[in-house]
């Protein structure tokens, strides 16, 4: 069944199957279900050009570039912090230093609330980027939506309760999915051009428009890129996901937000292919490195989107603004660990802990829990 929705795009809907796939979504290990296929058009790119988005917050890749990535992140955190204060025209004190002194006991990683919005309820929407239209989800990424579905129903997600002000169960369910075809390669090694965040925003705009969901903080769009696809944060193509080009390989994933003139505020995350050195978890996890690396990064970006959705636009919520050593870190950043089973000459793995929903177990990094002053897998 084809439905024409106007001259700007053609969208192929398989509504019955989509509905069916959602109905059976309780089986978190369901095989590939269908979703909508979306094409990015000039109108989407124009919307990006007319949007305000800022600079996304990325998850740095572990390895020799990590320190430069941290430098980059901290500098931008300073700029965002300074710009926000300059523009607000009001006095803004991060701590009470002007009135007193540091407490005798201070926890080095406790997050500070700086006034921005948080996400207390939202639907997740997966967007799979398919090279030449083909990349079976289970083969290429595992089952990210199954993971998100279980995450929403887990105890683990309730670590966010303290930050968003609610304890409702299953408040981040999985919604509709979409597929976007592109022509590969898009990376450094083939002499082609990596994707940029502008490309991703165009994708998100196209899908958000097509799905017709209400915008704002009630929807989170997760863009999954397949193996062999690079993306860069800047026009100079120097701050990138690029396992095939070491000097520019800075990050594994990121989250951001954009304000489109037509559809308004949109939240999104971008998960590149995670089963690569510098982004992956160690061997031996319950679902294997591909699935658990993808899920761990997806979890990281989800928790950060929930607790600090507009960091890219300088409207920070829960963030590290007191400890200079880790300035600008978010709830997920502070809990990344490194493990060197192959010696210090090889990229380290990310550390994980496990949580379970029914008989399904996942290995993901922990998240910072202010109430317990530590990184936890439980609230």
């Amino acid at each position, binding site marked *: 069944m084809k439905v024409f929705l106007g001259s700007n795009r053609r969208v192929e809907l398989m509504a019955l199957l989509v509905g069916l796939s959602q109905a059976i979504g309780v089986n978190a290990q369901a095989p590939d279900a269908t979703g909508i296929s979306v094409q990015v058009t000039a109108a989407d790119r124009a919307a990006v050009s007319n949007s305000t988005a800022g600079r996304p917050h990325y998850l740095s890749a*572990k390895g*020799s570039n*990590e*320190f430069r990535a*941290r*430098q980059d992140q*901290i*500098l931008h955190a*300073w700029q965002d*912090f*300074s710009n926000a*204060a300059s523009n607000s025209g*009001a*006095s*803004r*004190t*991060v*701590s009470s*230093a*002007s009135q007193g*002194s*540091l*407490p*005798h*006991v*201070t*926890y*080095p*990683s406790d997050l500070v609330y700086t006034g921005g919005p948080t996400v207390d309820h939202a639907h997740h929407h997966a967007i799979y980027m398919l090279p030449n239209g083909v990349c079976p989800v289970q083969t290429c990424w595992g089952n990210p939506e199954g993971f998100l579905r279980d995450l929403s129903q887990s105890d683990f997600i309730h670590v966010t309760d303290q930050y968003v002000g609610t304890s409702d169960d299953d408040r981040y369910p999985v919604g509709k999915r979409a597929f976007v075809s592109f022509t590969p390669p898009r990376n450094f090694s083939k002499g082609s051009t990596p994707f940029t965040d502008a490309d991703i925003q165009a994708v998100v705009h196209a899908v958000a428009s097509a799905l017709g969901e209400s915008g704002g903080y009630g929807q989170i769009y997760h863009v999954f890129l397949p193996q062999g696809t690079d993306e860069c944060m800047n026009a100079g193509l120097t701050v990138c996901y690029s396992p095939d080009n070491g000097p520019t390989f800075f990050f594994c994933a990121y989250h951001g937000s954009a304000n489109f003139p037509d559809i308004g505020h949109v939240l999104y995350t971008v998960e590149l292919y995670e089963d690569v050195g510098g982004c992956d978890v*160690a061997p031996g996890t319950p679902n294997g490195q591909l699935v658990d690396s993808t899920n761990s990064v997806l979890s990281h970006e989800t928790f950060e989107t929930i607790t600090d959705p507009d960091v890219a636009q300088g409207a920070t919520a829960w963030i590290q*603004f*007191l*400890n*200079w*050593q*880790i*300035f600008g870190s978010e709830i997920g950043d*502070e*809990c*990344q*660990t*490194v*493990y*060197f*089973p192959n*010696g*210090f000459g090889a990229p380290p*793995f*990310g*550390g*994980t*802990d496990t949580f379970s929903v029914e008989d399904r177990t996942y290995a993901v990094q*922990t998240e*910072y829990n202010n109430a*317990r*002053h*530590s*990184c*936890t*897998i439980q609230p």
Partner: protein
Amino acid sequence: MKILKLRKSVLRVLVLDACVAGCTLLPGGVQAASHTPLSVTVTAADQKAAEGASATPIRLLAVKGPNGVAAQTTRFPAAVQNRSAGDAASSDPSFVQSGVRYTGDVTYLGGAVIAGAQQHVIYLLPNGSCPIATCWGDPEGFLADLSKSRFVHLADQYVGASGPDRYPVGQSSSLSFAAPRNFSSGSTPLTDADMQAAVHAVAKASGQTGYGHIYHVLLPQGADVCTDTTYSNCYAPDSGAQWLFCGYHGSVDFTDIGHVVYAVEPYQDVSTPTVFTAKPGTCAVQPNTPNGTLVDSTDNLLSRLTFGTITDPDGSGWVNATDLVFFNTEISDECTFADAVLQNPATGNFEDVFFFVDVFRVASHRYGLLPIYDNAHHACTIGPSAE
């Protein structure tokens, strides 16, 4: 009193008149030091000894401000370069946790720690003159208080000792150098090689080397120091791009006198007009601390470098070996709290960013100092109990 110029190949040491007429009580209750300085002659051999020495990578305390990230972010490559696959960090099983992990907990990597040592201050005097109280406050008085305090017992868990007054103040020295030595005057900053040469001269003359002696080299206002002759990684408030750290500690193996442990404390009461300028931030503590920003900023750095030296003198003691954002940091690095009072409502002016310190008693005097990471409490604290 002889004042001799610092030349590239020769360092000479100035003999200070001792505080023989009695010590005056400085504001805030800090007593002026009373000491008999060591008279040492530095020769070309000291400089050559520094050139031929093997040193462990120095540990920088980053300047408070955006540029400081370049200093603190060099830690990962250093860790990679200087540790083997067999180190504890590589086999640390805590990557798989059991519910709770404290981000700041440090790990013992098997190297040296310092359970007890004498602390020796070396004052660098520009053109032979810089009254200690005016230029730095009372560093030796602070170190003496620190050794007697409960605060220092925060280190007991790391060094395996609990006796009192384990880090007393020993013989101090001073030396003259031809000022200025900084970027803005067109001269060249001092380097770590200069610091090592100074330490060599003093240590060789006294015979006090090894882990039982810690040398603190204090630089006056206006003296820049860089880690090497690339002059790119420096303490340099007068040159924003190069200003990456507030101080550092390290150790060196001289072929003639062996292992020497030292720290370098440049002038700390420095700040820039605002974080919104192109210049970086500050090494100073917040205003209104008990002894004023000069004294408490100096003592704050002394405290941090002392704890860092005691627990990780050679880079293989206690460091954070699992947390990515804290990787390879020491117990003082992890508690670098800052405050940003962005705009003063009363004046409308943007204020400086500065270190946000605790105010507490160290032995018999109160100071404004950053806390130190305490594994036992999984937090930054001021020691086992308040005094």
